[in-house]
């Protein structure tokens, strides 16, 4: 109940953050740490806009408590690009028009990264299954699938 100081390992660095036990990882990232890449769409696991990677696993940060993530390695969209440039998935999404309004994009790209980490050459069906938990109301998905295919071939 009381607020507590926790340390989260996000995008390679330890970050202190004040939370309550009920604070969702999504809120700790966005409001505690100012990492607003992860979005809240639905708040109950349906849309995937809040997807981040925890110990390499794609998860809905609206359904995880911040305190549950202590001791884990968290990757948000802010941590994907390096000093040398954007991640190949980010490049591919730009090149192939895999985004319009961009709300779904951080979650979509992280879900796609988890997919490619596990299965570097997915079929179209595997891409669609891997991204079934990420809703997009703009693109119609075809261009997202093409972007992921392009990134897989890059």
């Amino acid at each position, binding site marked *: *109940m009381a607020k507590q100081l926790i340390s989260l390992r996000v995008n390679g660095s330890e970050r202190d953050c004040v939370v309550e*036990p*009920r604070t*969702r990882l999504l809120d700790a990232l966005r409001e505690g740490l100012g990492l607003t890449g992860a979005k809240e769409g639905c*708040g109950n*696991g*349906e849309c995937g806009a809040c997807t981040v990677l925890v110990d390499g696993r794609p998860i809905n940060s609206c*359904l995880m408590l911040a305190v*549950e993530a202590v001791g884990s390695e968290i990757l948000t969209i802010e941590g994907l690009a390096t000093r040398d440039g954007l991640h190949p998935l980010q490049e591919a999404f730009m090149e192939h028009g895999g985004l319009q309004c961009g709300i779904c994009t951080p979650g979509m790209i992280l879900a796609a990264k988890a997919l490619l980490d596990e299965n570097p050459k997915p079929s179209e069906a595997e891409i669609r299954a891997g991204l079934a*938990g990420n809703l997009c109301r703009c693109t119609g998905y075809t261009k997202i699938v093409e972007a992921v295919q392009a990134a897989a071939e890059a």
Partner: protein
Amino acid sequence: MGTAMNAFDYERVATLDELVAALAGDPDGTRLLAGGTDLLVFMADGKLAPRKLLDPKRVPELNGISHNGTLRIGALTRMRDVELHPLVRSRYTALAQGAFEVGSVQIRHRATLGGNLGTASPAADTPPALLVHDAVVKLRGPDGVRKLPLGELYRGPGQTVLAPGEVIVAVKLPEHPARTGSWYIKLATRKAMDIAFVGVAARVTLAEDGRVAEARVALGAVAPVPLLAAEAGAAVTGSRLEDAALAAAAEAAMAASSPISDKRCSAEYRRAMVGVLTKRALRQAAALAEKR
């Protein structure tokens, strides 16, 4: 912050003893938090308001899949790990399919097998598969350990027979004979991220002469609890899955079901689909059995 959840305490527990003692000490206010994909949603909706959540995700006995004849799956094992496990895929295919049908990849990376049982949703996707695999659940409570056939875990929608402080430790699946195959079919509106209208699992073991030596059929979403339709399995035993035998199994499965009408679909539709899917799942299970 954008959360509607009540305030509560959170504590990680390191051992099963600690977990059981703490749950038994405060049965009304303290809850086990596994993947949270049901619990946190219920809390955000205001349907549950526990004072304290205990997180046993780091308790070793609750985690992982091991095999020594029997397949043991720790209750906190995540759906994604169940679905990808090579032995689950090859010998317990229906379970791999049931796990794969749960939500999205993101949900399956959090959702646990024990949580899918603990929630006791009649429409959950793994119980029909576990029932045809003759799963036994190992429970541990203040009074020690007991083992129940999965079918005896449920009391009604959202209700289990777990005593205060009692937790599911693991699910155990016996080794099936050679020439066994299994299959799970989920019927829903969307291909992913949807609750089953009907779920049907089947397991078939074939004898040397190609006749069915043993068969099981189990149903989800068509009764207050997931259900083993024993008569449906019996109806094809000794047969070669001829049309008449399959029709008898379908009739038996439909008779075992007691579906309701809701906003998703009508009871009549559900019952009709139990028949159709029972035949289909038995055929698919038999086709896999022939290959093994």
